């Protein structure tokens, strides 16, 4: 697919979104955070890692010039700048982790749903075993045994989310494989790969996109939870969950250190959930 047609499709998708108010607001919130991540260097008032003046309240003035809009943390780092740079962290790891989980889940789901039989039984059992762990228990077990790092978080998310995606894709594939155009492809002797990736997958994209938005939000929450539990990205990386965790000890004195990162994460997830809801509404309408 060439670039211009991709852009055209993107624009037509945005045009569609206008029909759902909820979806539009969600898209705007997401867009806001994406822009913040891209232009972090330009907007952030301070270096997120440099220790300036510890434990300042919001709107405190920096003696060396500038304003700590949201105050500073225990080590004197500007909270606003850390939130802004934290956006980059979220925007890199969460989509990457979701994407790899989708690749694995889609391949497994297509194979299970299309071939059925033994392949499906085996894949479904594996998925069931993984899903029988409470999600967070699974994360804690994986991270505590392989250590906390960006790559490991992606690995853990893939491992823990792929079974859920597998189930969705499998269900869609099982439904779509009974369509007559699949039968037509079979009767002209197309290979299984062609049928899975050309005849089935493109027609499952609607529900998958809706699910992907929801799941991305969930992955963002998960990364936040891991940070909160002290199992997230190693410090001093600006990470929203980690910021909340670091401020816990003095929460009663400086609640703002935790509140602002919480607002950031909640609003981003809210944006994704609203976007997903809007997309679902639109896809049901047509």
């Amino acid at each position, binding site marked *: 697919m060439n670039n211009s047609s991709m852009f055209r499709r993107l624009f037509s998708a945005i045009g569609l979104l206008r029909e759902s108010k909820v979806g539009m607001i969600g898209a705007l919130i997401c867009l806001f955070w994406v822009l913040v991540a891209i232009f972090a260097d330009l907007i952030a008032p301070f270096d997120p890692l440099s220790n300036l003046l510890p434990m300042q309240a919001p709107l405190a003035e920096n003696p060396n010039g500038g304003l700590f809009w949201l105050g500073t943390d225990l080590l004197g780092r500007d909270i606003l700048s850390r939130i802004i740079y934290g956006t980059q962290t979220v925007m890199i790891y969460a989509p990457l982790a979701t994407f790899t989980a989708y690749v694995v889940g889609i391949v497994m789901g297509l194979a299970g749903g299309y071939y059925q039989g033994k392949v499906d039984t085996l894949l479904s*059992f594996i998925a*069931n*075993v993984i899903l029988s762990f*409470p999600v967070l228990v699974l994360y804690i077990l994986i991270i505590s045994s392989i250590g906390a790092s960006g790559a490991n978080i992606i690995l853990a998310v893939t491992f823990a989310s792929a079974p859920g995606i597998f189930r969705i894709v499998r269900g869609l594939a099982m439904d779509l494989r009974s369509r007559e155009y699949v039968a037509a492809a079979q009767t002209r002797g197309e290979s299984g790969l062609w049928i899975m990736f050309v005849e089935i997958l493109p027609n499952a994209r609607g529900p998958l996109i809706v699910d992907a938005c929801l799941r991305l939000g969930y992955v963002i929450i998960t990364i936040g939870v891991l940070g909160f539990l*002290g199992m997230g990205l190693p410090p001093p990386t600006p990470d929203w969950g980690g910021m*909340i965790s670091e401020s816990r000890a003095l*929460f009663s004195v400086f609640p703002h250190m935790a*509140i602002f990162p919480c607002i950031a994460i909640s609003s981003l*997830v809210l944006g994704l959930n609203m976007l997903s809801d809007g997309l679902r509404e639109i896809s049901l309408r047509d």
Partner: protein
Amino acid sequence: MIKLITRRIGVMLLTMLVVSVILFLALELNIDSVAIKVLGPYSSEEQRQLWLEANGYHRPVLERYLSWAGSFMSGDFGDSIRFRVPVADILWERLGNTLILAGVTFGIMIPLSILLGVLSGMKEGSLLDRIISLICIITTSIPEFASAVFLSAIFVFSWQLLPGTSSMLAGFDPVQLILPAMVLIGYGFGYVARMTRASMAEVMSTHYIRTAVLKGLPYRQVIFRHALRNALIAPFTIIMLQVNWLLSGVIVVEYAFAYKGFGALLLEASLNSDVYLIEACTMVAVCAAVLTQLIADIGYSYLNPRIRFS
């Protein structure tokens, strides 16, 4: 029906077996690391070998697994490294605390979410529906740790109505349950309510509801006798699967409010590489998840006559 149940139970046992094998292999295949975890990083090589020998770690893996599984099933989970007491001693007490919290949460969350879901799905697109849906989207977007922060800031520090921690050091205190339960309910009810709404809305648009209305039944009878029975089948499964979610949420909430429950125990065990405690906690968690899954499956087929009589 009986066939289905026996099959389900079989699958459940198989799942448990596979989980236990994976868990055992992951934590105890490398015997040297087990020794280090038990005896600490400063123990000498000689001490470790002695300990391994004494505890039968030089036997073949299969034999070790079988004896481990055997003592596991008889309730002997080994000793906790950190607490220096048998795992069983702390595990059951902590589990009890968590059950109290989970019970309160479910007791409020399920009726609330079903009520909201049904109200919302009864007339899709109405003002009430839109308000409820919006509330649900917002609450499901605020993760537990964030709502713990928000609610503490409001109820503990601004209004000073509730205690900020729930460690229950001075004995059981129901007031200390309020905040953790609120956090869990807040994050969880939206999902169940939305699922109930979707199911209800779907049922309300079916032809058999049209038939019921055009039969001349009063609206209440249409809702209570015709719609609800069908609309609550799908949410039932979802509610049962929420137990799995609740176990995740419980870890965060117990950590946030220093509640002495099962989730905090598991987290602590993981952070301290407390091998036997991790094993016991994980198996208990998985067992709970698989059991509720089983109940969900059986319940679903029982509620659904199309499966019950086939």
